């Protein structure tokens, strides 16, 4: 079975490469990751450095010294922007690992074991699905200390519901396949079947879903920070927007302080979205045509064709 998963992932990659949207998304994400990792090399200023400022250094326009101007504390917006990628990507990565792990486990267990286990797990999932995510995250973070770890934990622990549902339905369909039934018939243990047969076939779906979960986690983190519930020791994109919005960037007309951090969020989330959309197409290539679709004119006979028979319609097949 090991080889099955390898070849199916290989085939997956080959199809994936044919989807330009997915490739563009991947490149966008890679750029963001490189920027985050190499932030000290790219950013002209160190955001943590203590600077002395005067009133003239606040919300200065973009200039050669400050490519994207300065913020409410006279700091270089471009440098903060580059460093901000670190927070977003960290939260996206770790929170999604938690979510995917929980959602994947619940989905596989519910789908594979069925019966009461499934019933209880899916009922629980339904409840969690209906409770509005963001307000709950806001409440919990507001009641605890808003540190990076807490934020990751809360977003991760609440973001698994869609994964659980998807993985469950995929598990159900895999479970009905012949080789799984055969493995069960010859008495293979359930954990063994899950590891060897179910997981490899559910994995591609989980990969696609991960991309979506990452983007949701990043959106949630930035919203949280914007609402003033970010880790106060870190400068994330959401936090930059919080400062700019609450500290007069609007009235100062400092568009650079408002546009830049949002651009970062959109860049990363759009990268995830394009990648996820492309992956999905690669996973379930669907015939994108239907009974009303028109790709070309249905009747495309040479002009001579109509004329050829025109003189003798109604003639019988017999001469």
């Amino acid at each position: 079975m090991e080889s099955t998963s390898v070849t199916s992932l290989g085939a997956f990659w080959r199809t994936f490469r044919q989807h330009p949207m997915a490739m563009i998304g991947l490149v966008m994400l890679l750029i963001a990751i490189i920027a985050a990792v190499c932030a000290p090399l790219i950013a002209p200023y160190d955001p943590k450095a203590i600077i002395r400022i005067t009133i003239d250094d606040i919300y200065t326009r973009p200039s050669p010294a400050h490519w994207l101007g300065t913020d409410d504390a006279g700091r270089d917006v471009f440098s903060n922007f580059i460093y901000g990628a670190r927070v977003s990507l960290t939260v996206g990565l770790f929170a999604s690992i938690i979510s995917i792990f929980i959602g994947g486990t619940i989905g596989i267990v519910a789908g594979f074991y069925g019966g009461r286990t499934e019933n209880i797990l899916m009922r629980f999932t339904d409840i969690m699905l209906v409770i509005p995510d963001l307000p709950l995250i806001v409440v919990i973070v507001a009641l605890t200390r808003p540190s990076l770890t807490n934020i990751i934990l809360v977003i991760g622990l609440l973001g698994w519901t869609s994964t659980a549902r998807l993985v469950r339905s995929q598990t159900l369909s895999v479970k009905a396949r012949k080789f799984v039934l055969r493995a069960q018939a010859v008495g293979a243990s359930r954990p063994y079947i899950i590891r060897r047969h179910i997981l490899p076939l559910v994995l591609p779906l989980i990969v696609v879903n991960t991309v979506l979960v990452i983007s949701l986690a990043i959106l949630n983190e930035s919203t949280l920070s914007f609402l003033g519930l970010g880790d106060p020791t870190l400068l994330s994109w959401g936090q930059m927007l919080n400062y700019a919005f609450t500290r007069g960037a609007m009235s100062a007309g400092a568009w650079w302080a408002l546009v830049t951090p949002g651009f970062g969020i959109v860049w990363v989330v759009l990268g995830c979205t394009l990648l996820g959309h492309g992956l999905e197409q690669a996973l379930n290539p669907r015939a994108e045509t239907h009974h009303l679709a028109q790709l070309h004119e249905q009747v495309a006979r040479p002009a001579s064709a109509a004329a050829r028979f025109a003189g003798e319609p109604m003639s019988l097949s017999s001469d």
Partner: protein
Amino acid sequence: MRASYLLGKLAWALFTILFVICLNFFLFRVLPGDPVRSGVRDPRLTQEAQQAIRERFGLDKPVINCFESLNPVKSGPCLINPFETQFFLYVRNLLTGDLGISYHTNRPVSTMLGERLWNTILLIGAGQILAIILGMGLGILAAWKARTPIDFGALLFSLLAWSLPTFWLGIILLFAGSRYFNLPLGGMITPGVNFPGAWARVSDMLRHMLLPTLTYTIVFLGEYMLIMRSTLVDVLSEDYILTARAKGLNHFQILKDHALKNAMLPMVTIIALNLGFTVAGAVQIETVFSWPGLGGAIFEAVGRRDYPMLQGAFLLLAVSVIFANLGAELLYSVLDPRIRAE
């Protein structure tokens, strides 16, 4: 069959509400901040008010039977009268509509939420209706013209709209709108103005509503369009569409009389599942545009450490979503004869 289906859905909704109530109770009593207890000592409250809260919430009583240990402040005997626990008092207060007193205004939370609920419904309602109509329209166009440049353009637009953080889009629109189009900087109505007539008042409010509604619409439009498109492509691939064409119906008649009703079924489900995001959108948009609604209440309550308000707003939002969900289930059962007739 149908009655039992509906009763089942109703029972499930009630159970979910019960779960939310428990969650709400424990979050606010058990998490490290222990806000209710610390809240009682909030300097903004008078001595008498503090005492009133203690009694009202039974803060000298155990949280709940046998969960005593969760609450280290007071260790008493395990089995006491369940009607003497904080949980019981909380539920009883809830049933009488008592959500506590706001630390910030010293007014009942339920009154304050009641004032704000309709503002939120107004904003969400306008935004959702526009998003649904425009999203479905675009989705229909994209599905009908599948694999043409129109389709591709609509897809790109939707993916981009989906990727925009709601609050940021709000900020950008607010920035542009207030600078270049002379639109108000927020709120629901210009304060301190004596409006000459009802119409002046309404038009002032519409000016305030324009940008938040636009933000709302753009953010949700993309997803509805994507879903409508893929659902409709599925429906249009069905055999009965070919039958409809063979019957001599034109494309417009087929879309109107055969495809849309079938496509509406999944749409209703997705819109219901999306209600949670709707609320998330409300929190952000009301914050950016200082719109006096429930979402804004959450933000303000967080900033002011006004825990009763936060707790109440969260509960009301969650319960609204559950009811809206129930409404969607009922709508579904009306639309789908396979459920309706049985």
